[in-house]
């Protein structure tokens, strides 16, 4: 063990377990810990105290829409995993989607259906595969982003929204809205992905009396231009019937 390096890092275990080191400091400290049993023991000794801190917070119920949106993405993941070959067939009916699918397949090689299944699994499991715990996730895995929506203020004066996109934009995202008016029983909000001139329907949703709502965006967003919302008749439309009331530029 390098004594000088230990002296440099001797007081770092506590800020490390509290998350109070910067990213570059974390990298340097973790590199040091790998070779320093003293610091490693100190981290293990202090970690239970830091891990207890979130338990001091009283539970607060999040909006019900949060769970619905989360499970919509999870179910979409499961459908993609279980129906990989069917996905190829369905996608081939859609202009643009097939080209993207072929692009992925050509990168993976092999028989199309098999290759897509393989690519799908790689995306599904590989996005966050590896070690354990928040501090061990890679920078790529941590990234994710929230993109604010632009609202048509004339039609939705108190509306707002954002799109939460996981680390890989190929995995779609979750669109969340606030302050949207509840529509009459014959109408729904419809979510679209715009790619080039193509508008691809994603999902339908309604909002509660509190104006809160959430919807899954299941398409690959990597080369998409925007995610949009329109108001449509119940059951949804094949193409938007009005200019978007909300737009998330990508």
């Amino acid at each position: 063990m390098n004594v000088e390096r230990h002296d440099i890092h001797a007081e770092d275990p506590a800020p490390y377990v509290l998350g109070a080191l910067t990213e570059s400091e974390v990298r340097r400290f973790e590199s040091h810990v790998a070779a320093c049993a003293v610091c490693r023991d100190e981290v293990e000794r202090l970690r239970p105290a830091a891990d207890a801190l979130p338990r001091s917070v009283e539970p607060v119920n999040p909006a019900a829409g949060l769970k619905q949106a989360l499970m919509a993405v999870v179910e979409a993941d499961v459908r993609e995993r279980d129906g990989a070959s069917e996905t190829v067939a369905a996608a081939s009916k859609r202009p643009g989607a097939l080209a993207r699918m072929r692009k992925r397949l050509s990168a993976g090689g092999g028989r199309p259906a098999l290759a897509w299944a393989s690519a799908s699994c790689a995306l599904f499991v590989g996005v966050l595969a590896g070690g354990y715990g928040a501090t061990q996730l890679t920078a790529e895995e941590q990234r994710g982003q929230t993109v604010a929506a632009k609202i048509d203020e004339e039609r939705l004066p108190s509306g707002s929204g954002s799109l939460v996109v996981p680390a890989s934009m190929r995995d779609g995202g979750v669109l969340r809205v606030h302050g949207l008016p509840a529509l009459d029983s014959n109408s729904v909000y419809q979510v679209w992905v715009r790619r080039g001139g193509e508008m691809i329907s994603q999902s339908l949703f309604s909002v509660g009396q509190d104006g809160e709502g959430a919807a899954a965006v299941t398409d690959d967003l990597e080369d998409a231009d925007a995610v949009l919302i329109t108001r449509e008749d119940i059951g949804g439309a094949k193409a938007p019937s009005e200019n978007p009331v909300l737009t998330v530029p990508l």
Partner: protein
Amino acid sequence: MHLVQDGDPRAFELLYDRHGGASFALAYRMVGDRVTAEDISQEAFLSIWRSRTRYQAERGSVRTWVLGIVHHRAIDALRRNLVHERRRSSAEGIEERHEAPERERTDVEAARREDARHVRSALGGLPQAQSRVIELAYFGGFSHSQIAEMLEMPIGTVKGRMRLGLEKLRQGLAEKVA
């Protein structure tokens, strides 16, 4: 948890039901804003679903794993300035509280509330100088150098107070268990 790791969505839903409230509460305590806290929870649980095979029981409880990921994401959000008006960590961090639904008022829920009281009591038993730096770091998402600047004290003092505070907290929690 093994059903979650096998990719069972119903098991994952149960995991969310068990830990979603605590996760949201932690994010809310840290960022002080419901919308941002929900975004953080959403991102964290998607990350958990997609990295579910990484959980290792020997490294700690599921709850600790989940809350660790939420904490990391909240710090990331704070440092990316997603939250424009930072809330300083304080005992009154959560301004809006909701009672758990009737169905959640189980023995497990009661035990968790008792545990929360124990941890708060142990945290409250620390000298204020130590609890202050711990709360600013853990719940405020501030780095040690930011805290040193904020409190106008040397970085070494901040780190030392964190270490002493965590050490006392560890002892306090152990005494309550014993």
